């Protein structure tokens, strides 16, 4: 269980990205974070594994205080939290295999990993992870030789290498077309059904309705909604996205059966 209490983040330039945000993520949930660009979604996700240090507030991961963790403890916490990014964040010039293996760095022998030596078990695990996302044949390609959808699948395989109990997904499909969006989210849904908690930020409400088990919404760094996907009606939508907003509902976003 992940508990976020009174989380506040102020950037050095004075921007208040998060204002006193509190919520809980129960084990096995597919919790989606929605909100406009700049509403603090990315900052929130990055505070959870402390890629960004929060200014105030607490984060508890199974009753362990993440915000107070020592550097060594933090590395141990991070390796149980998988992360998937909007821009995939692969090392473009490295092979797919190396990118996937790098997800195992938190477990690997530090010295051997610096030499690029990986145990056969880790290699086996990497091939299996690639197999799960359906691109085992691309293991030796350069990462930037892959299409966007394939790169995001490498990103998921990398997260799988961490044997995560929770996956943070920062707009994982914002750079992909609608068809690929569904295929990527279905992989996350599959992981979720296997017991991995998913905390995912999304832009499109169709996708939220289709995949989320619960939704929170951020507006200008404030938590403005917490509830079930069905509770987001037209009024709520206007409240979260502003009076001017028009919902984009492309036919292609209709969930496949």
């Amino acid at each position: 269980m992940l508990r976020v209490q009174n989380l506040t983040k102020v950037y050095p330039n004075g921007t208040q990205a998060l204002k006193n945000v509190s919520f809980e993520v129960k084990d096995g949930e597919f919790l989606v974070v929605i909100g406009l660009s700049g509403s603090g979604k990315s900052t929130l996700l990055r505070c959870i594994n402390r890629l960004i240090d929060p200014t105030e507030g607490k984060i508890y991961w199974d009753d362990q205080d993440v915000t107070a963790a020592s550097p060594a403890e933090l590395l141990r916490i991070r390796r149980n939290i998988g992360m998937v990014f909007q821009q995939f964040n692969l090392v473009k010039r490295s092979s797919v295999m190396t990118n996937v293996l790098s997800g195992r760095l938190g477990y690997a022998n530090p010295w051997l990993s610096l030499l690029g030596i990986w145990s056969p078990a880790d290699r086996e695990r990497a091939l299996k992870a690639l197999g799960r996302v359906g691109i085992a044949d691309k293991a030796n390609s350069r990462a930037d030789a892959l299409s966007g959808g394939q790169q995001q699948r490498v990103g998921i395989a990398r997260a799988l290498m961490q044997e995560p109990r929770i996956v943070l997904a920062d707009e994982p499909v914002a750079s992909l077309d609608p068809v690929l969006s569904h295929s990527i989210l279905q992989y996350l849904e599959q992981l979720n059904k296997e017991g991995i908690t998913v905390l995912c930020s999304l832009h499109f409400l169709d996708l939220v309705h289709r995949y989320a088990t619960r939704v929170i919404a951020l507006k200008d760094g404030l938590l403005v909604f917490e509830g079930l996907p069905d509770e987001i009606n037209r009024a709520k939508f206007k409240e979260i996205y502003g009076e001017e907003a028009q919902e984009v509902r492309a036919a292609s976003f209709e969930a496949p059966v």
Partner: protein
Amino acid sequence: MTAASQTRRNPILTALLSTLVPGLGQGIVKRWYRGVAILLATLVVAGMVIWYGKPVWYFAPVGMWLWNIWDAFSLAGGRARTILIPVAFGLAAAYGIGWQVVGVNFAAADMNRALAVARPMAHPDMFEVKTETNETWTPIKIPCPATSSSPSSVREDNGRVATVSPSCGAPMDTLKISVSGMWPNTNTQIWWRTAISDPLLLGGTNGDKMLVLKTDSSGSLTTSIHVPISVLIAQPDKTLSLEHQVRFTQSRPTGGIAISYNGGFVLKGMLETIAMALMATVLAIFVAVPISFLAARNLMGGNPITFGIYVVVRTLLNILRSVEALLFAIVFVVITGLGPFAGVLALMVHSIAALAKLYSEVIEGIDPGPIEAIKATGANWVQVARYGVIPQIIPPFTSFTIYRWDINVRTATVIGMVGGGGIGFYLIQWIQLNDFRAVSAAFIAIAIVVIILDFLSAKVRERLV
């Protein structure tokens, strides 16, 4: 300034102001940029013409001045005149004066002198046909010794017999010479070697050509020569009788091609040049890599102290880079003496500046995304550097380094000319000796090496990036 913000004035007054001071009228109607530009341009062109001192060029500033009056007059009525006219005047003056200053004179390209260079260059002195030589000689005393000597000097060696009679003489004496046992029907060079081993020619009317005669079918020849007039010049005591030699030299091709004497120096110089460039590049890497981190804005921009270091390092690099390696070579030759090491140091200094700038731009261009992703896996900072940073910078670093080596080879050929070693060192000597066949060989060698390196470095870099 937009036309809307300008003020209308009396056209005559405005034109009058611009007549007194170019641009003033334009300024009065609030077109200040235009006015200042006109004033500066007119002053610069006028200054140029006055400095050059040829009255014919005064048309340019005068033309600009007249246009400026017309422009001021029109502007007062709210209408600007095209600036193409003063620009054309300025360009005409700049180009015309420039043409005369550099002394463009196509007539100076003398065809005969060009041919004197071009002909030998068409026969580069790189390879030669392998030959074997057959040489013998006989001694002769100059001047005659006090005690009497034998009537003829005969010397036998391996079946070849060379004879000169009499066996001593003074300058311009006539001598009868003969040789036998040489290769038959072969051109034979007959020449004089003085007591101090200087070669002297025996042919022509004044001994200004090599004397060449063909042996008969039995390998013999006979002729008469004059003792060269300059034979005693290098002999301090003109009465002391010393032994000189009359020499007979035959040569014939044996088939096969060998690298010529100068060709050997071309190869040696080329090798030296490539090695100089390689040494300089490798040495520069070690200095440039740490400096590049100091010159990367994304790393150093964080606080005022590091940003100060960044600005200083960047400025120094820019200064170093703006000085040609050739000029550094001139300085280093004074410090270390002539030779390749001076060239290496010069190339190194320039390469450090160039590489550090390129490297720092690579560092500035690093994608923070993968670094964030690797951090998120629980990797420690060394692992983050190894898996998130190094893979991003090594290929472009390598690519830029190879490119630099390629540039350094080209620069190293020139650096030799100021004493920095390498092929340029030989090249400048051959140019000064008018040995254009060797110059041609060096040019070809440089071209081949540069083209090959260019091609290889392009191929390697293609694979890296």
